[in-house]
């Protein structure tokens, strides 16, 4: 008994050391996942458009579909994903301890998370940023006209800090009304306590639908902070990191080449070299990642290209109707989504 206790305490200290040092390198994530036969995906579960179970209990959203794409690339089966709902607090520990293989939970890529938390961010699947919602009746066109306006914001968030920074930088007078929860802040805005409500732009669209008269409100064009959201993995396993990153790039490349879920089988016959390299009819790029030749074909066949996933979850095919904006392809529409070439 005593020995068991000692072992436990020792294990505890080692564990804590690992958490603080944050370098739990398990170089064989791909093998672990393959042996287990299922991908453990850390997800949100409470964010519309990104990770949320629907009425049947199926996970929907951009982040959830990313994990499906990853599973499709590995297993040729998008359903071999176990979604592990994580709170903002325990998400990083879950990744570090190996509870999940990839964290696809609207996590902002920051310097400190990349360095001291021992994470690697594979790609940016959604460029988010903080925005403002105001009443149409105020006839505002820009956030710069918000001088001296009362702004509803959730307490103790980076949102609150960004707001202060933005107003100070533009020498405007700030009048914030803070609330403990986003729900209260929104309700206060709806009842007229404030002129504007601020939070991440992706959430603004979903929250607008909660207002009594959602058509009376608009989201201003200014985005005052950078919130690049993307899947994160543990440091120390470059192969796994590459797989996660290129899963996103494969979806972008497919959009660039107009390969969709519907026409991907037809495209297998294409003679266009970029298409052949992506779909694996030429070269063995997938095998170099430790996957199969047709890894990208599997992703597109089962999940679709980036545009399809975007429109279905947050874009025109969803109730949120968010514009592509910064998330458009750089190559065609001058957005920020840009995939390095597959060759």
């Amino acid at each position, binding site marked *: 008994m005593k020995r068991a206790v000692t072992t*436990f305490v020792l*294990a*505890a200290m*080692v*564990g*804590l050391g*690992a*958490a603080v040092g944050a370098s739990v390198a398990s170089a064989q994530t791909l093998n672990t996942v393959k042996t287990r036969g299922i991908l453990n995906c850390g997800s949100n*579960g*409470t*964010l*519309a*458009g990104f990770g*949320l*179970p*629907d*009425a*049947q*209990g*199926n*996970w929907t959203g951009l982040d959830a579909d990313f994990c499906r794409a990853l599973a499709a690339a590995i297993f040729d089966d998008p359903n071999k994903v*176990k*979604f*592990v*709902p*994580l*709170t903002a*607090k*325990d998400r990083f*520990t*879950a990744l*570090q*301890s*190996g*509870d999940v293989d990839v964290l696809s939970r609207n996590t902002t890529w920051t310097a400190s998370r990349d360095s001291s938390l021992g994470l690697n961010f594979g790609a940016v699947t959604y460029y988010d940023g903080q925005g403002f919602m105001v009443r149409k009746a105020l006839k505002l066109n820009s956030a710069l006209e918000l001088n001296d306006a009362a702004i509803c914001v959730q307490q103790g968030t980076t949102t609150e800090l960004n707001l202060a920074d933005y107003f100070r930088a533009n020498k405007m007078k700030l009048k914030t009304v803070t609330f403990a929860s986003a*729900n209260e802040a929104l309700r206060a805005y*709806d009842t007229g306590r404030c002129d504007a409500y601020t939070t991440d732009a992706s959430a603004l669209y*979903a*929250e607008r*639908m*909660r*207002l*009594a*008269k959602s058509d009376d409100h608009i989201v201003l064009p200014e985005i005052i902070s950078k919130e690049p959201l993307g899947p994160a993995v543990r440091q120390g396993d470059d192969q796994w990191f590459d797989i996660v990153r290129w899963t996103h790039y494969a979806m972008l490349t497919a959009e660039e080449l107009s390969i969709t879920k519907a026409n991907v089988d037809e495209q297998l016959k294409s003679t266009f070299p970029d298409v052949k390299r992506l779909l694996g009819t030429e070269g063995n790029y997938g095998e170099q990642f430790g996957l199969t030749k047709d890894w990208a074909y599997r992703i597109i066949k089962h999940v679709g290209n980036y545009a399809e996933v975007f429109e279905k979850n947050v874009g025109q095919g*969803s*109730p*949120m109707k968010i514009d592509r904006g910064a998330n458009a392809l750089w190559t065609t529409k001058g957005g920020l989504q840009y995939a390095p070439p597959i060759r």
Partner: protein
Amino acid sequence: MADPATASLPVGAAYIRREPVPARPPPLLVSGPLAWLRRNFFASVPDTLLTILGAVILYWIIPPIVDFLLLDATWTGADREACLATPERPEVGACWPFVRDRFAYFIYGSYPIPERWRVDAFFALLAAGIFWMLWLDAPARGLGAVYFFIVLPIVSVFLLSGAPSLGLAKVDTALWGGLMVTVVVATVGIVVSLPIGIALALGRRSKMPLVRLLCVIFIEFVRGVPLITVLFMASVMLPLFVPETYSPDKLVRALVGVALFSSAYMAEVVRAGLQAIPRGQYEAATALALGYWRGMGLVILPQALRITIPNIVNSYIALFKDTTLVFVVGIFDFLRAIEVARIDPKWATPVTSTTGYAFAAIFYFVVCYAMSRYATGVERRLAAGARRGVV
């Protein structure tokens, strides 16, 4: 004229009444509804003021609730459009189609749809077991206990998480959710905490110093930390201590946390009962040549548990509501399922959240009130036995 009382009277004594005067009705202020009102509501000036205050508060609270839940409520619809205010319908109450649409999710969470009959079977088996245990005149209650405490848990594990050898596909606990998780967590907590609690309570009153010390340490340690901390430690810290392959399932971790936590509280409840038993009972048990275990089992515990029934049920009610805390470790219990559903943009309206929470409140109230009524019934029954001196 056979009445002997009148027959013996002298003839002509006509002033003697032959029939009693009919009783006059009591004054209105002594009996009748008015008197009842006066006695119960307006007996004195402070009473009257309190009555008026109460009436005003009820007037403030009741009509808006009825309006929201029933009169202004939306009953049919396919999506959020049905529950939005329009110029013709400025006041929108509860959005019940949202609850109906998401009802299956509230019950089963993400449990695979073709396998959901297994959850139904579990609910049915559990209900049968509870009924068998709670119905005091049920036949073969000994067998019922064996069923409830031994057969049911084993069958439930196979039924819910699956047994490939029996043709039941494995269902990962990450897919469990909604009411079934609440029921599983609460049942495990309730079933496990009583025996462990009794053992700990006896241990704490034991004459063996080591046993006593261990029990005291356990009870005081667990009572000294909040449940949320226990759950958080179990879910976040434990995986760091043990290798991934040995790391127990997330739901199991939460179950163990909840069970240990409620056991510590149960131990103190039972100990209070043990201390209330007069010393004479212990001595009487010893005088009858009953050893420690038989004395406890036959004389002390039956009395101690009876007087602690209100407190035990109190703990159970608290435990049932505490199960909502498992959401901090990412398990979607009933309340969390509702919270998740209200985020769905398909149903995003100003009333969706309120409707969801109102539904949760009604559910928790019904369950907890049922527990409390049952306990009252049992108490009354046992009290009747004590009055007759039949203990």
